[in-house]
């Protein structure tokens, strides 16, 4: 596109560089590669694996799409999203789990025994309420401080999960979290649960798409670029920032509720700061302000995590590290050659 006039015949390297910078091509290759990878895994490992993969993908896709609303569209670099995810998961666990059979009586926690579908809206609301509180505080800070205070929020949330033992059982975690149930029909089959997750993912993607294409989304993008000018034109930017922050957190709470029910066991280790960092990497790799990019990023991430289990000669304790190294290397490479991510238009 812009390299045609400089040299008559570009070297292979130059053409490669050019290809990487051309948005359409790289995005297409990435899509083909990641989806192809998923298909190959499914053929190799069977449908059961694909169902697990799909469910985990839906949960992480909800997370990354929702985080992109804040980081990508509004330009608020938050690394604390995992906190809202955790609130959703713990909400589901505390409200639905039946710990009466637990042997560890010392760690008994209140019993609510709510059904899944009653607990899920409460998870979403709880994340929303937490987001209002956190957001009102965060709005006092300049955008470049955001990353630090959101970092603090992630750490605080983790420590609450770990230390508020009367509610969370601390490091023991909460077992026997309920699966969805409508009447006598229990979605304890993995396929049913996947279907439910797909529905929620579609809802989240639909809401997100509607928001970013609306005039509300236009204001978010304006805030991202020049908050002061947005104010000059009559937008109370703190209100917009708080609104999208709360909406995004509620989506993360939903993802958390699904995760708790899916794994039927919730403990603090799923909500460490590192997971939050990985989530931010997914959003950046996939592309800021691109919903498609976040879906792609989430799929690649989940493949990396779940797929690595089948590399039999890799000791299981290294899987986590290898996943992080691969993600780290990809992040560095992409920031070098395509700072706008696979499908995005913005740079960080």
């Amino acid at each position, binding site marked *: 596109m812009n390299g045609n006039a400089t040299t008559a015949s570009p070297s292979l390297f130059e053409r490669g560089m050019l290809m990487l910078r051309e948005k359409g091509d790289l995005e297409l290759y990435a899509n083909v590669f990641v989806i192809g990878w998923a298909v190959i895994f499914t053929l190799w490992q069977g449908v059961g694996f694909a169902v697990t993969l799909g469910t985990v993908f839906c949960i992480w896709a909800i997370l990354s799409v929702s985080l992109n609303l804040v980081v990508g569209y509004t330009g608020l670099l938050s690394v604390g999203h995992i906190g809202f995810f955790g609130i959703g998961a713990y909400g589901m666990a505390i409200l639905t789990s039946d710990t009466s059979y637990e042997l560890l009586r010392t760690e008994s926690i209140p019993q609510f025994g709510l059904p899944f579908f009653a607990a899920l809206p409460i998870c979403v609301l709880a994340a929303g309420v937490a987001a209002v509180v956190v957001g009102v505080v965060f709005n006092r800070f300049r955008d470049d401080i955001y990353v630090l205070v959101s970092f603090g929020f992630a750490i605080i949330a983790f420590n609450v999960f770990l230390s508020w033992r009367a509610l969370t059982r601390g490091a023991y975690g909460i077992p026997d979290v309920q699966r969805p149930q409508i009447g006598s029909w229990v979605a304890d089959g993995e396929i049913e649960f996947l279907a439910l997750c797909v529905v929620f993912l579609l809802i989240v993607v639909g809401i997100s798409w509607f928001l970013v294409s609306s*005039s509300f989304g*236009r*204001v978010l*993008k*304006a805030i*991202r*670029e*020049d908050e*002061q*000018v*947005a*104010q*000059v*034109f*009559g*937008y*109370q*930017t703190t209100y917009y920032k708080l609104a999208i922050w709360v909406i995004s957190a509620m989506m993360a709470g939903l993802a958390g509720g699904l995760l708790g029910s899916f794994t039927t066991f919730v403990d603090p280790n799923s909500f460490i700061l590192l997971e939050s960092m990985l989530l931010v990497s997914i959003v950046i790799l996939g592309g800021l*302000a691109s919903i498609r990019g976040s879906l792609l990023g989430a799929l690649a991430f989940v493949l990396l995590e779940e797929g690595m289990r089948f590399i039999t000669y890799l000791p299981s304790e290294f899987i986590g590290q290898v996943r992080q190294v691969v993600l780290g290397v990809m992040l560095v490479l992409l920031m070098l050659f395509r700072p706008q991510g696979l499908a995005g*238009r*913005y740079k960080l």
Partner: protein
Amino acid sequence: MVATDQDIANRDGSDAPASEALLDLVDISVHYGAVIGLDKVSLAVNQGELVAVMGPNGAGKSTVLKAIMGLAPVVGGTVYLRGEPLDVATHEIVKQGISFVPQGRRVFTHLTIEENLRLGCLHVGDRDEQERRLESTLDLFPILRDKRRDYASAMSGGQQQMLAIGRGLMAGPDVLLLDEPTLGLAPIIVTEVFEKISEISQVLRTTILVVEHNIQSILDIASRAYILNNGRLAHDGSPESVRETDILTDVFLGKVGDEEA
């Protein structure tokens, strides 16, 4: 458009605005920490006027406009709009009828031209009115109509300046504040921008307060001019009065500033 040559220095120090001025700044002081941005600057703009603010770099010209928009740390004085103190938050000011086109254009480069323009009038609830404003702005700047679906980042500096002014007009202002609208533009584009500014003033009858460094061109179309130096008012009066005195050379060569120091 009669130049009303108010002698602001003669005010008796009371906080009352001049009754007929549309926009009236009385003894505005701005302190950026230890740096004094403005020191008791008074300035009035009457209905329908085109008022120029001039002065060397760092004189406080932008600060005057920012003080009106609530974007500068004002430590003293009052801004009056239609005789009423204008003490509302920045995002409320556009609804009062003041629109600001900042220095350096600051268009939203990742949005299309049409999206940029629409952002200028979203506070107007009425859809039909929004469409009408869009059409009249696109009529005023045909180049924007041709490129309305393009991203603002794909535009030249001159086109971005037209977009910035157009976005300001979308708010339907009674007073348009323009900060250095010709900065960094080629001479031919500068001429075009000046033509647009006088068109907005003459045809749309919008009151304009403009900061400008192209002194001769702006004096040709301005009704009155203020000259700032070191955060203080060095002169105000008709364009002729500015041309007759040596005030411009004095200010720009730093003579006035030296005396004060």
